[in-house]
């Protein structure tokens, strides 16, 4: 058993060395270029970030007609906004928003892998990919939410969405009370990746 669960003492360095060697060989052999990986990373660092999701949520908070449309035909509603080209690109081919409302809280999970709405939120944080979260959120979402600081009324329905098909789900959280006079920028600052997957509320301290 000890061998099964022992990590090498140079765990991270050996992975870093191996991936560096692999990338170098793939460049030398003409599979990718010397810039491919950096360009992929730049795409996610500069364009496909949670800023897109923040804009979508604040639009829904400030435009009730948009809020109604975005949960019915999410791609069509998103095409109205000033967002980067590629919202229907990789892992955004079939986006689907669900909205929290009084008495209903949505939670998005992926028990089989890590399906995530890349164009809306960028790449998934580690907690979303954690087997413990994926396993427990399916069975005991209320307990899991309490542990991470989301206290819901006992009669609030929790809708858990397991991303096993083609859709990539995200949550429109509820607009916090007392934000009527906030600017759009102030409102956007309340919206976290976690609140758009349902493991936090908008405006919840992080």
């Amino acid at each position: 058993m000890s061998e099964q669960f022992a990590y090498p003492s140079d765990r991270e360095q050996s992975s870093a060395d191996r991936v560096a060697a692999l990338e170098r060989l793939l460049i030398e052999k003409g599979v990718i270029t010397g810039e491919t990986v950096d360009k992929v990373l730049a795409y996610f660092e500069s364009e496909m970030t949670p800023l897109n999701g923040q804009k979508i949520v604040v639009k829904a908070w400030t435009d009730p007609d948009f809020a109604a449309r975005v949960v019915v035909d999410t791609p069509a509603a998103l095409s109205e906004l000033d967002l980067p080209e590629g919202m229907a690109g990789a892992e955004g081919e079939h986006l689907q928003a669900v909205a929290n409302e009084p008495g209903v809280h949505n939670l998005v999970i992926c028990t089989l892998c890590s399906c995530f709405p890349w164009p809306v939120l960028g790449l998934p944080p580690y907690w979303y990919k954690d087997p413990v979260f994926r396993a427990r959120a399916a069975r005991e979402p209320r307990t899991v939410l309490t542990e991470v600081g989301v206290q819901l009324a006992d009669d609030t329905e929790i809708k858990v969405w397991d991303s096993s098909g083609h859709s990539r789900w995200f949550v429109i959280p509820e607009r916090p009370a007392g934000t009527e006079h906030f600017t759009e920028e102030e409102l956007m600052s309340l919206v976290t990746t976690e609140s758009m997957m349902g493991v936090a509320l908008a405006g919840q301290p992080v």
Partner: protein
Amino acid sequence: MKLQHYLGGLEGLPAPLTLEKRVFVEEWEKRIFGIHVAMMGLSTHLDSALPAYPISEVPTEFRDEWTWASLRTGAEAMNPFDYFKFRYYEKWLGGISQFFVDQGYVTEQEISALIGDPAPAPVGGDPAIDEQVIDYLRRGDSPRRDIAHPKFSVGDPVRIADVPAGSHTRLPGYLRARSGTVTRIFEGDYGYFVHTGDGIGDPMPIYIVEFTPEELWGVRAEPGANTLYAELFEAYLQPIEEAK
């Protein structure tokens, strides 16, 4: 029965949860993520994708199919102890580097010879390769195909199939043999990257099926008003004959 298919609902796991909000916890993880995306964007199957990418004209030496199904099949084939032992991108690195060795792109000897080599990675290469990868990211690879002719209607009670485990599945194990209610039929049919061996691959309708916690977890269901929705291919649904 594969543990990875039955992750949803597994009991006895650590509590309380804390959320690791970083996307990458080590710098090297970014590199394997980028390599995986490049492979998806250069995959030979993209010539038959909905934006018919001119993949055969892209000047890359990559000449294989590589999709999410490739990565997932590898993860589902792992020793389940290892699945829990290794971090997300450690699993990617293991699966992807093994693929390149198995397919003859690189050898273990070549990798070993470079370990600890301080020389910087080479620069250059044909920019048309990168243009294809970014074009794939912007335009995607939708599985939607034909107009659907769904067998089931909204409101229908359905029982989830309990077929033998394939090498890969999109059926969460905890739903097997459980009963639920169809709440939505998506427009169109949806293919899958591969034929998984458990019924999906060819274009077919996809449904949202609603389950009660009591149906899924019995007396050990968490108290409270919870509902679980899963998005399921038609092949995973069976009709329930109404008792006459």
